[in-house]
């Protein structure tokens, strides 16, 4: 062997240091056995976020969203929402409903002071504001791992386990709708799984409004199961009828309308028919699925 001992030890120690550095993240902390955060804390945080809401919305008119233009897109479904600015009074019930539905964690005090909440729904210009599920989503284009991707029926989905936390998507979202898990909410006792259907997110991944993906998934699977044992209804294809997002369900004024832009029977299409549709200026060219509506046409 030409390699002398010194060299050998040197290379060994190098490997050890690398291993140490890499292993740093995996040192098991003692499990935090503390109590789960109370519902009150979630309510308080929403109030705090409401009091901090500042940005006003710069809206421009857009046409009604049509079928997606990505390859393989469904011609039957494109899910989206319309937020009725005439009806909304900015009560913020949608934020709490969303947080509880999607197990959105609390943030530590210093983050809250800086306005760095995890809420998927923000209050901007006294109206709820969330990911617009752009048909031409800039976040998905720059995601290195493909964790942010589009479903054929118009959802900008987020695969948490595939996310490596480069935060490029967050930088490339023109409206900052994406939230990054800076903290290990589970370890800090800031997360609570109110809804078993939605997994808790790990530290270091991006998240955002999923348009209650789990509800759509469940509905689709149930529909397909029932379809094959003898469909008695007229629908031969799944159109997501009857699904509502948590925020839409919680809105006392019915100002958030969820539906399928391509389905004539969808409440979304019916209720937005004679209304002016708007989108944030930055998103107007990106084919958003979640839009605002105001006034009569």
């Amino acid at each position, binding site marked *: *062997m*030409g*390699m002398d001992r010194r060299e050998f030890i040197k290379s060994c120690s190098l490997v050890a240091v690398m291993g140490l*550095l*890499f292993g*740093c*993240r*995996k*040192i098991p902390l003692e499990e935090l056995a503390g109590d789960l955060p109370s519902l009150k804390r979630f309510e308080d945080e929403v109030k705090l976020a409401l009091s901090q809401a500042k940005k006003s919305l710069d809206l421009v008119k857009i046409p009604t969203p049509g079928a997606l233009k*990505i*390859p*393989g*897109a469904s011609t039957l479904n494109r899910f989206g929402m319309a937020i009725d600015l005439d009806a909304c009074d900015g009560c913020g019930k949608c934020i709490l409903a969303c947080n509880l539905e999607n197990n959105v964690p609390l943030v530590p005090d210093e*983050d809250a002071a*800086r*306005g*760095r909440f995890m809420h998927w729904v923000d209050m901007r210009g006294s109206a709820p504001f969330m990911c617009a599920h752009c048909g*031409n989503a*800039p976040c*998905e*284009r*720059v*995601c*290195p*791992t*493909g964790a942010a*991707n*589009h*479903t*054929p029926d118009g959802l900008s989905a987020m695969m948490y*386990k*595939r*996310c*490596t*936390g*480069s*935060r*490029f998507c*967050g*930088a*490339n979202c*023109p409206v*900052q709708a994406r939230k*990054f898990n*800076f903290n*290990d909410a589970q370890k800090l006792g800031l997360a609570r799984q109110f809804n*078993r259907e939605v997994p808790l997110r*790990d*530290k*270091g991944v*991006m998240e955002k409004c999923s348009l209650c993906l789990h509800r759509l998934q469940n509905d689709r699977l149930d529909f397909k*199961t*029932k*379809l094959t*044992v*003898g*469909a*008695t*209804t007229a629908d031969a294809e799944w159109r997501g009828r009857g699904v509502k997002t948590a925020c839409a369900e919680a809105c006392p004024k019915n100002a958030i309308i969820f539906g399928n832009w391509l389905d004539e029977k969808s409440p979304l299409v019916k209720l937005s028919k004679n209304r002016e549709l708007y989108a944030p200026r*930055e998103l107007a060219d990106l084919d958003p699925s979640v839009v605002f509506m105001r006034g009569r046409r």
Partner: protein
Amino acid sequence: MFKYLMLAGLALFLPGLYALGYSIFEGPSAWMVDSRTFWGTPISLFVFWIGLAHAGTLLSAIFLALDIKLDRRTALIAELSTLVCLVFAGIFPLMHLGVVENFYMVMPLLDARGNFANVGSPLVWDFCCIAVYALLSLVFFMTHLKTREIPALDKYRKPMAWLLFPLVLWVHTVVSLDFATAFVPEWCGAFFPVYFIAGAIFSGLALMNLLLCSEGYRVRLLERLQLIFSWFMCAIWVWDLMLKGSLCTSAFIFAGVLPQFRMIAVIRENKWGRIALSLSVLIGLFLERLYIVSPEFGSYAASPLNWIDWGLIAFSVGGFVLLFFGIRRYLSWKMEGAGSYFGEVDGTDLADAEQQELEKEGARGIEKPKKGFYIQPWASEEYHVLRLPLLVGFAIALVYSIWVLSQSVFANVEFSFANIVPLLYPVIALVTTVTLYLRAYFVEHAFTLHRHEKWMAAILLVLVAACAGTFFAGGSSQNSTNTIDSQSIGVDAPISQSHARLLWNARCATCHGVKGNFNEKFVREFYPVPQKLDVQRLDSLGADSLVKVILNGRANMNAYAGRLTPEEAHGLVNYMYSLAKEGEK
């Protein structure tokens, strides 16, 4: 001198290492993050160090390719600085990830699950370009280092230089595209490739001049280039200012104004003056990177950087000093000596030194190029060396891009050639280099490896294969902690026919049969036969009493009260009617 440098390096590196460890442990909340771009110091440092990494290949490879003479020692120092810079340029993007252990998902290779990195993302281009650049720079450096022992290797330097020439610019272009492709208003700029390349070359020159100061000599050409590039940077900043209406003033002062003091002879001729000029450029360019990466830093805090940020900066600077001067010392016998073209210890003029060199060359029979001199197209020696490997490189790149574009992962993605272009050259360069050196070793026998080198190569190959295998297999996720027991009772609401059928098949069909004609095999053997379904019988019993039977049971029929809701029972009764009707047909 060496001792002091090492001490200074350690003094910076050790606290920095602590900061690095802490920030890897704590994740991205440890350092300051721009609220809009989610990025902070690590990315600034990445862009900074990758820029500095251009010193080596720029000076060594591009000068070699373009027949601009540079002496061996300067070239080797430049190449070594590239390698050391790349170490730090590589650490920062990795440590900045939210989930560091998932970094391999950025590699554009298929994994066992059929997942593929999104090759349309500039970060994937980055990853590939930098990896290939690091590998090729290492090969280039080792080749140069070995030429004294194995002169036959000299033949491969110029072809490698031509390969690296586009690659080095490609790397920084791709780094610039991280920003230029994004929607952040401060990052918008189709001119970013040129901007970043100019900045990279500028900072690389400053680093080289600084390192040459520590060597105790100077290369005027590099100093002049540094001054010229400061003008060019200023011109680009003018354009940036026109486009966006903002300018990083501190960067402008440090890297735009202060370098002009080179025009004053007193400063230029003093070693400390030159050090100050180079340092000012480096500081200015770091501030500029900080400003680009985190445009909102100035707005919400008086001091945007916390101790982690400073620690990371210290880590990279200290680490560079330690690593560079350590290796420099270790290899000193291989680097020093040999003729120098225009490295000058004292104030002799560049032109003189160069003239002498050229005269020496002329005496050796090397013809000085003069007007009208030309080489036949496609006739140069380096082209002959490169021809076959390049062909292989292009072929593999073509195959690779077709393979990538056909991945099923991209079935739902709008994808075009433009998304994959930035990935092509690194693939070509990598394959070409590998082919070139494999041919040199196995076919041309241009060099031989010592036994321990062979061992190292074998171990390296095994390691690479093991890493690739691990990445291919990927990690597995933790199973749910949820437990499943029996089905809980449904919602008490009217149910559809198909729902009723599913319920029937699960709950009733065991005895009553899927079609209502009872399950012979099961029932005859063990139990009294249940009643057959027919419309008459159902009518005589009535729907309400049937619901009661389902819920409360009767004779051999069990009570389902805790397991079915009354509405579900209703649904089942309706379904029984439809089964009965079907049976009669």
